[in-house]
């Protein structure tokens, strides 16, 4: 078998902590997160950048981790679903997804929540069109999206009322 690549060592920050792993340079960041760093919250749904189940935040931007080669994670700041809750305290978006039915089978949920967070970072008070647009790269087969929108709206409302 023609084998010219050697595994490389990559250092980055994942969920606020320094992380380091070995991988082939073009290994998918998705696989690295799941297999090397044991962060299995990020999911594979399609392997072609179409479903968004693998969405993570990389250097502040929402990206499909199935489309990022490991080498390009060098020096990056990455946030996955595991980095949202603080101890046992869920993020408002996570809470809303539970109370408002945003999660059914849950496989799209990590990516969807990351996408929702990214949307709210860009549009803290999104209107209906902006919510739909912001989540349009994340496919959900269970909900028809209705309760996902409601969950986002609920999270925004919760952010408006001081705790």
């Amino acid at each position, binding site marked *: 078998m023609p084998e010219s690549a050697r595994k490389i060592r990559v250092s980055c920050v994942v969920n606020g902590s320094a992380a380091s792993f070995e991988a082939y340079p073009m290994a998918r960041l998705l696989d690295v997160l799941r297999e090397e760093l044991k962060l299995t919250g990020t999911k594979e749904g399609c392997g072609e950048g179409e479903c968004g189940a693998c969405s993570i935040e990389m250097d502040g931007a929402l990206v499909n981790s199935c489309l990022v080669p490991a080498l390009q994670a060098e020096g990056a700041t990455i946030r996955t679903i595991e980095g949202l809750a603080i101890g046992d305290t869920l993020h408002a978006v996570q809470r809303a997804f539970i109370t408002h039915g945003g999660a059914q089978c849950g496989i799209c949920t990590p990516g969807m929540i990351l996408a929702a967070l990214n949307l709210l970072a860009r549009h803290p008070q999104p209107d209906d069109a902006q919510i739909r647009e912001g989540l349009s790269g994340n496919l959900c087969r269970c909900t028809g999206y*209705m309760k996902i929108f409601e969950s986002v709206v609920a999270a925004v409302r919760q952010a408006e009322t001081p705790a």
Partner: protein
Amino acid sequence: METRVIGKSVPRKEGREKVTGRARYVDDLSFPGMLHGVTVRSPAARGRIRAIHFEGEIPWHEFTVVTAKDIPGKNCIALLIDDQPCLAAEFVNHPEEAIVLLAHDDKYLLEEARRAVRIAIEPLPAIFSIEDSLARKEIIWGQDNIFKSFYVEKGDVDRAWSGAEFVVEGTYETGAQEQLYIEPQGMIAQVNEAEGVTVWGSLQCPHYVHKALMMLFGLPRERIRVVQTETGGGFGGKEEYPSMIAAHAALLARKSGRPVKIIYDRAEDMVATTKRHPSRTRHATALTRDGKLLAMDIDFTVDGGAYETLSPVVLSRGTIHAAGPYACPNVRIRSRAVATNAPPHGAFRGFGAPQSVFALERHLDRVAEVVGIAPEELRRRNFIREGQTLAVGQVVKEKVDMNDLMERAFELSGYHAKRKRFTETNSDSDAHGGIKRGIGFASFLHGAGFTGSGEEYLASEVAMEGMADGTVHILAGSTEMGQGTNTIFAQIAAEALRLDCEQIRIVQPDTAYVPNSGPTVASRTAMIVGKLVETAAAGLLKTLQDSGLLRNGYGAADFSRACCLYVAKNGALKSFVKYEHPHDLHWDDQKYSGDAYGAYAWAVYVAEVSVDTRTAEVRVNDFVAVQEVGKVINPVLAAGQIEGGVAQGIGFALYENVVWQEGRMLNAQMTNYVMPTSVDLPTIRVYFEEIPYGRGPAGAKGIGELPLDGTAPAIANAIVHATGVDVRRIPITAETLLEMLEAVHA
């Protein structure tokens, strides 16, 4: 009757795990020494396997290789019959049929190896359409390519034609639809002397897999164990297929002596696993001068693919639903499931009914046009009422008023005003940027539970256990896959025991521990199994009360204490319930008539669309779903089911087109097999009416499949209203619609 937790939107039981990424799906699991497995599949649609060549620069000695020869028991995936091989031995009958299995610990090398296996197949003539199958262009299955046929007769159809003022005929077709659960199929298997065969995976029916593995391995019940992992969507796609992938993983595990994980990528999942049966329905309908149904002659055919699998049952449901919620004195339904050389088609939410209901509801709008009355008027004159009989002879015992449902749906959707307004504005669509608008509806019903004697045959069981710490465990083979099984079971038990849902645990479906509650399909989980949960809870409560350890007006702490004491004294506190078929439900399998289902959900759906005549793009602008479903156990979960089902129905009608090439799905990527995104769907507005059903838990009926029946025909009828084209087939692709628009324009 006032309820404590039933009827409340109790948060999803496993919600926290799902929103934190801690829920463990099969691909999240890893075992020490685990190998990866892949499947080498047939390149041909039909033929004789001549040779298997292991080529390339692959270190084959490192690989575990499994073929049909390695199967210890019977080479079949047991289901209704045993015609489907686990691994093709001499003949292949569809593209992508599994032939060789490989395992290795390097999953990248494994993929190279898969590519390096060359299967030499001497092709045989294959058939790919219902027409060719019925014409017996080739006999590819049995004596006549027919897996199953049904004949339903009510009254005397042939005599009715002479008295008819109107006779309307039509042929309608539906295409294949891919379930497209976002989590692809996967299994992990382990085989050892100590425990036998154990599989963990994404599945809906652990006991189906269990039964299949027993036959494949020739092992007794206690040597096979099936565990459901968190399942990322099923919709029927994980009803029967998981038995195949479990078998494959287990065979590799047996031969290698190591745990083996097989995870399909999206392309393999799409191209190799089941899809909704394509269908063709022919209607001939006779009516009186007043637009009352006199006779319905229905011919219904589904394409089952290469092996029987569940086609007889899909055909059954489609057949029984083919004549809809209408009173018609004379009905004949002739139906059949036929074989073609495609991967077997299988269960997908609705299970035959979306196919036959599409045909009926499209047809009735056309019938109304011929009779010269509005489509809703035709329905009004013919809706079935309590005391009348459905096509299969079942007397309706429910108090539902379909006219009321229809009027409510019309009011909520603004149907009448829009019907009128759109007709006016459509005449000058150029003034509206080429956009034509339409509004249409479908009226339908969906039976919950297994058909006829099915539930009796399933003889489902549920167990419940009161633990020393006061929690109550529910042991059932019913699975959670997003629809809310865990939560509603907890609610039902909590209600019966007067506890909070937090005190109820749902034991992970594991055939070593839970009884067979039947498959998680057929809109039966709430109504049938939920009732068993309710009964088991009542039984548990009675045991405690009879023991004197629990007094009236007890609180949660009292209950806990009582459990603790009872267990300490007696060793265990258990209750066990088995399904009992209601004495007043009778079904005749020979005549295919009688009480098909214990209860039905009834619905009217209204779709509003806009059609861009320049591009033939269709947009659903508004959707109203009104249904009577018995008691709603959890409003958020129930609405979620309808919303998600409508979304799948919109996909079925407009977006989801399987492109076939000689039995193989050509567009097996999410880029090219398209489901709606968040910007493609309208606000889906869901309304429930509740007439409690005496035999359901707290009065609940089943709703899981209902939305798939009425969504597509409502949209099709709306498109007809908008454009005047005569839709006969779904999916309605823009390409076809543009041609039809041009023809209408000309």
